């Protein structure tokens, strides 16, 4: 699989010719790593972020391209901005697993061509203060955005999800779906703010939000089979946060690290 590893202001890449990658590394401490990725043909890509604090990414997906992006972050404080530009008939799946402590993320999707679809999934362990803003602009008719976020809070962590869907007048037949869930294990103050800015009637829009605990009855059931409380929580967290980033071991090991 195509892979980009961004570590410590260095970039390693192993990429085939249908993906163009250009980048600027940081010149100073205050600088931001910038990466531009053009996806020209159907492709999969994995990006791993390690020990990095600021980064801007731009990804352009060409017409009629099917693109799967898998992301894993392991860092202390991360400020990240992603812009996704989707041309007509492109279909993009993004799966992200975040194990950075503090997180400030802004992800903007521009659905520029007809029939473009984004299926965006972000799962995060909120161990520090985290805020994620996700915005989808439906700039063409027949475009679809499916935005799914999940977080489990731990230690002093907290999370705010702001999810915005924009559909302007005369852009018809769009689907705008948002689903955010927070398992608030540490009783932190968390927020989910779904915002639907829709000027057009001919749209299917919906949002769902949940902030709460695992169900007591589920925990009781698992424990009734001899599974101790901590292990029951481990199983439930694993079930909740599992996401396909083409590396199940990383997810299992991360969850075992925090929930033994």
């Amino acid at each position: 699989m195509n892979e980009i590893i961004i570590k410590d202001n260095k970039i390693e890449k192993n990429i085939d010719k249908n993906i163009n990658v250009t980048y600027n590394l940081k010149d100073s401490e205050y600088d931001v790593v910038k990466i531009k990725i053009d996806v020209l043909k159907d492709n999969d890509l994995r990006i791993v972020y390690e020990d990095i604090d600021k980064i801007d990414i731009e990804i352009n997906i060409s017409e009629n391209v099917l693109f799967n992006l898998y992301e894993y972050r392991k860092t202390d404080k991360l400020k990240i901005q992603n812009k996704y530009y989707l041309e007509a008939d492109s279909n993009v799946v993004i799966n992200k697993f975040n194990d950075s402590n503090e997180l400030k993320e802004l992800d903007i999707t521009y659905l520029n061509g007809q029939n473009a679809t984004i299926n965006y999934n972000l799962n995060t362990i909120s161990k520090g203060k985290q805020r994620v803003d996700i915005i989808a602009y439906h700039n063409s008719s027949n475009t679809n955005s499916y935005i799914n976020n999940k977080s489990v809070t731990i230690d002093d962590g907290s999370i705010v999800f702001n999810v915005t869907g924009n559909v302007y007048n005369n852009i018809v037949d769009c689907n705008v779906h948002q689903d955010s869930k927070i398992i608030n294990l540490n009783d932190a103050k968390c927020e989910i703010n779904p915002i639907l800015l829709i000027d057009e009637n001919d749209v299917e829009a919906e949002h769902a939000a949940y902030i709460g605990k695992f169900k007591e009855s589920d925990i009781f059931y698992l424990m009734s089979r001899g599974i101790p409380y901590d292990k029951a929580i481990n199983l439930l967290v694993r079930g909740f946060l599992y996401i396909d980033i083409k590396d199940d071991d990383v997810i299992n090991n991360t969850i075992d690290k925090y929930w033994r």
Partner: protein
Amino acid sequence: MLTFYSKNGKIYIGVDFMHSLIIKNLKVSINEKIILDGFNLTINSGETHAIMGPNGTGKSTLSKVIMGDSNYKVLDGEIYFDDILINDMSVDERARLGIFLAFQTPPSIDGVTNADFLRTACSIKDGKQFNLMKFIKEINTTVESLNMDKEMIHRNVNKGFSGGERKKNEILEMYMLKPNTVILDEIDSGLDIDSLKTVGNQVQEYKDKENCSILLITHYQRLLDYIKPDFVHIMKNGKIIKTGGLELVKELELSGYENIGK
């Protein structure tokens, strides 16, 4: 007590296979409402006890209190397992003693597959002795003998299962965990006639093999065609009002819960 007992073709002598669950004068409330009051029952290995009673009388409450559900408050009385007071024991500890509850309404659990769940439970129970190959073999044969869909092993626990499939899944879990004390809370509800027969026969077979004790909670006599109780208890208003044998079931059919015991 010294007993002779044969298992897997071997003769065992000792107390290993004898267990008892003793409930003394139990008084239980939930949300300030008293549900069980003056409840007494003793169950020994090899015995099957049926509890029958009208809806809302506290049968499920009893089963969950035995398992240690902390939503219920034990106001008075004791629960002993092999002379150990378990009132304050956690749910998982009780399970590891060998107490198993087949739930009246088993929950469905997002993201956790049956296979992961049962592997975790069995590996905790067996510790170092846990053998994955043996586990896989056993789960496959049990799924087959219960006429379950093989795919269910890899689906999330009870997710999208029909009522009957959930009940069979409870029996699958029982077979895998090999409890010595089995509580079946309306295992017959939601089962079609074929499944009722399969489940009934599988439970009886398990009992014959493991010499476990069974507490069978049911509304209807039809399950008793397959699982033969040694004792039948009629429960009303949070306590046992009458105990007998199978003849009580007939009496119940004739007179109904209203008049029995009068």
